[in-house]
């Protein structure tokens, strides 16, 4: 077969997903649950965590999405198994894409959901154990499709994004349904004002 669209690592995780939950959710009682994305946008992820001593001892996931979405969630699940909650909370989509041997440019947006779902699952657990917001600075989700928060926008501006195009390149915000553009542009201008033109 001629060159595949994706790296061999993506192919392997797509064909043989690790820790995928093939039964219904009830079959894996979990301590933390996080869901992100939107079927309308073409991908959605669910992460279920089992936690002991603030470590991820086991996890399962479900994904509706393309090959890079499935492979990214699979890789993420391998990487964070055994991690402390705090380490897992700091995982970035770039870390996962790198481990997968890179993703095509137009596919990077498919990989940014897994870590959002993971953080949502950790937040869910923290909330249940009365430690809400332990790792989180207050943030609000702006881009519902990709789960991008106001904090993510602030971080992007801090790292140099000044225009809508910069912000899109940095975060892929608004590249799916585009419904968040007005709100996100407003925040972008606000942060640019704070952090300098």
């Amino acid at each position, binding site marked *: *077969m001629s060159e595949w*669209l994706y790296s061999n690592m993506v192919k392997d995780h*797509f*064909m043989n*997903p690790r820790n*995928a*939950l*093939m*039964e*219904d959710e009830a079959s894996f009682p979990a301590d933390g649950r996080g*869901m992100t*994305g939107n*079927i*309308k*946008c*073409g*991908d*959605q*992820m*669910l992460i279920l965590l089992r936690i002991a001593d603030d470590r991820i001892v086991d996890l399962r996931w*479900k*994904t*509706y*999405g*393309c*090959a*890079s*979405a*499935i492979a990214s969630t699979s890789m993420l699940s391998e990487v964070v198994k055994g991690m402390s909650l705090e380490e897992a909370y700091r995982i970035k989509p770039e870390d996962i894409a790198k481990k997968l041997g890179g993703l095509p440019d*137009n*596919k990077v*947006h*498919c990989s940014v959901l897994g870590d959002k779902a993971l953080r949502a699952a950790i937040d869910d657990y923290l909330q249940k154990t009365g430690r809400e917001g332990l790792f989180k600075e207050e943030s609000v989700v702006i881009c519902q499709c990709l789960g991008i928060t106001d904090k993510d926008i602030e971080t992007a501006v801090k790292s140099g994004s000044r225009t809508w195009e910069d912000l899109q390149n940095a975060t892929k915000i608004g*590249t*799916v349904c585009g419904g968040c553009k007005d709100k996100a542009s407003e925040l972008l201008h606000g942060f640019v004002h704070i952090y300098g033109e």
Partner: protein
Amino acid sequence: MENKRIYMDYNATTPLRLEVGSAIVKDLEIFGNASSMHEAGRAAHARVEAARESVGKLIGAPAERIVFTSGGSESNNTVFQTMLLAGEGQNRNEIVTTAIEHPCVINSAEFLRSRGMKVTFLPVDPDGKVHFDELRAVVNERTLLVSVMLANNEIGTIQDLRAISAIAKEAGAWVHSDAVQAAGKVPVDVDKLGVDYLTLSAHKIYGPKGVGALYARKGAPFEPLIRGGHQEHGLRAGTYNNIGILGFGVAAELAFAELASYGHDLARLRTILRDGFIERVPNIKINGHPREVLPNTLNVSFPGAEGESILLHLDLLGIQASTGSACASGSLDPSHVLMATGVGPELAHGSIRFSLGRDTTEQDVRYVLDTVPPIIARLRAMSTVN
């Protein structure tokens, strides 16, 4: 099994037919400029003109009304460019087309809109059909062009072009149809359809890529997109693409001769595939019109499974199809055709188009029917939606 290759993407493109390839190879040494008067030129000219006859015959048109182009996109662009110039400063300067056209028509229409022309994209019903009352509501004495594709590339729905033309003609508008997908699969006759312009492409009918044609009725305005020499009676400049054109001619000749049996054979296989999916995969939706549909095109939505994932699983098992999912296009929007039929993004993202062709066998169809259900079951099992 590991070397199995089943190509079910004939609407994207077709392989070169053996007969077409042989004709091209045989005439490869025909290098002359078909515009030259000497023997080398005359040899090329003869082949170009023979091809023009064959292409005309495929659509019931006289050879002299056929203009060779570089393909379907150029033909469509030529029509819209012509309308831009024909409508400039005139009262009659509105364009009516549909929401499910090929991007080269949609983007050409958008270009005309950007130049100040009024453009209406007609909606379609859930089967992908244009409704006459909706057409009537927008066509009037200001309508310059009505452009409606004969058969849709993604869902295969065939429009009632004859009736559409009649409505357009009544208002005095020109009628164009992109028949790139219909030609060779269903009968196409420019007089019966009542069109003034019709677009064809060679590579969709087992001819070479890079060559197409535009039929233009006598008296219909025509503005060359490419200006230069006097080739194509001054309607399309540029040295004749001898090899491409003669290949197109052979492909058209064969398509015309085999039209009835080709359509019949494909329709039988399509039915087996459609009924097999309905029987073996729960909760699916067949897209496109139930009867007025291309005999080779089957578009199926598998809710709960995403199209690109289905496609790549199929590819790894040797089945080559296409999807309307955003994730496979790079555009991030799901198929505009499926969205126009109102299926919604979930079904559009989970859609697969199987388009059959000359080399498709019943055995291939059975293999696909055995292969697809477990892929869908697996993707649905790991999906957040069931």
